[in-house]
């Protein structure tokens, strides 16, 4: 309870400091919508030239793209500060203050930033899958809805865990941002149906960096009933639990090795 109160106090302070650059935030929001519009336009133009992409029609490909935005945006809302830890804050000797406070360091990092931009992404994703779903004739089952929700929420936990684990390495190597970037960029592979990739990449995206597991497979379940929704949900939840446990463990170990760089 104390932590909930503390979280909101910290977030409020972070929002106030954000308001310093009001005009820039508006430009950033606009450019965010514009950039997604451009990516969607690119996909639309490509699909105009062919009948379907590996058997997927335009609204189906749009659905993949829209759904991929949900876990990514949920993660974006809560854990943006880890990027700074990985890239800058450890290197700049900026983390010392967190080690002096009687609250877990990981909690403090979460409480440092709340990114309202994530809402834009979330709204755009939901709008896109709604528009695409209206242009599809699929048999929506209860199980498919459940597995999509599980994919979005627990997928976000998996992404956050990857971020926590990778940024924790900065405690040892001082800077782990580029490594985090490599891992994170694989999420863009999951914007398209897995069918377009060769078998090895598909396996990588399901078993190693499981972006395909919680984005592509649930969508395939909705569109074509390819997988059992309940087993798939279970697999995603299990995977999220393992990733989160591993991330916390890696964070604890790396945190103990922290040495201030001075400032």
């Amino acid at each position, binding site marked *: 309870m104390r932590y909930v109160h503390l979280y909101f106090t910290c977030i409020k302070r972070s929002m106030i400091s954000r308001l310093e*650059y009001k*005009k*820039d935030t508006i430009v*950033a929001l606009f*450019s965010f919508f514009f950039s997604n519009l*451009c990516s969607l336009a690119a996909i639309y133009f490509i699909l105009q030239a062919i*009948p379907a992409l*590996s058997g997927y029609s335009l609204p189906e490909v749009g659905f993949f793209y829209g759904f991929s935005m949900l876990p990514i945006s949920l993660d974006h809302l809560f854990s943006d500060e880890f990027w700074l830890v990985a890239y800058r804050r450890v290197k700049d000797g900026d983390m010392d203050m967190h080690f002096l406070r009687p609250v877990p360091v990981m909690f403090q990092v979460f409480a440092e930033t709340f990114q309202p931009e994530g809402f834009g992404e979330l709204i755009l994703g939901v709008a896109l899958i709604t528009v695409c779903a209206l242009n599809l004739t699929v048999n929506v089952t209860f199980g498919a809805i459940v597995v999509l929700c599980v994919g979005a929420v627990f997928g976000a936990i998996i992404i956050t865990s990857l971020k926590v684990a990778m940024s924790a390495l900065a405690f040892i190597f001082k800077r782990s941002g580029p490594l985090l970037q490599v891992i994170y*960029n694989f999420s863009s592979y999951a914007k398209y149906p897995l069918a*377009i990739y060769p078998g090895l990449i598909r396996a990588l995206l399901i078993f190693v960096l499981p972006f395909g597991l919680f984005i592509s497979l649930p969508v395939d379940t909705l569109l074509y009933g390819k997988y059992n929704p309940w087993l798939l949900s279970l697999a995603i939840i299990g995977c999220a639990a393992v990733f989160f446990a591993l991330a916390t463990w890696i964070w604890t170990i790396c945190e103990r090795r922290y040495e201030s760089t001075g400032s």
Partner: protein
Amino acid sequence: MLKKYKPFLRAGAIDTTAYRFNILIWAVITVCEVACMVFLWLAVYRSSEGGMDAEIHGFTYREMIAYVVLTTIFNFVTYNNDTLWNINADIKKGTVGNYLIKPISYRGKFAATSLGNLFTMTLMFGVPLYAAALVTLGVLGFLPDLSFPAFFAHLGLFLLSGLSASLLNDTIAYIFGVLCFYTSSGWGLNSLKVTLISFLSGTLLPIAFFPKGLRDVVSWMPFAGMSQNPVLILMMKYDLTESLRCVALSFAWIVVLELFAKLLFSHAVRKVTVHGG
């Protein structure tokens, strides 16, 4: 005796590997991105009505892959993002005031730096990367027939278009940088600029894929000269007349944008708020 130097030794080693590590990581990220694009295009051609031998909007799948690889190298060599961030830093730190009283042009300083960058980047990375890519793609048969005497004319025009692309990049970055005078921060403006350039320059996909009306408008804008046109000149997809037209268009745009930047700066400089200094 030597023990006290050990931390320095370690720091030095870490420092050196840090930069090497960065280049390595950059290479990994780029290879992953290019691979993703290649898989996407292969799937597109496989799914097209004519199968793998189809020509979509004037590109075979081999040419499309060559296009993706060459635009990636071209952007890496000519792209420059420092201008916007330097202006932003000058505004935030208040150092912009120092430049306003010095007898050099604020604009000229960035243009010169940018050309210096282009020179080093072309020699250090451009020459080996282009050579490796052209030889590999040529041997694999991914390039349209490069008939040799004509290729040298195209190579010359390509280098010229690389110069104009770099100047265009710098001018546009400068214009967006000056707009930071109005917003006091560069994040939003920077991401807007990055998106505009990657979509309208043909980096995301060739402009030939755009619907007709949009295609006509975009091909007269300055952006195509920053990525698509130079690469198509090098691949000899354009004949000499078309190539010359593209290069001339880019240089005309540089003049227009420079004039605009001058006007914008003289307005913006009256808005300047120096935060300390």
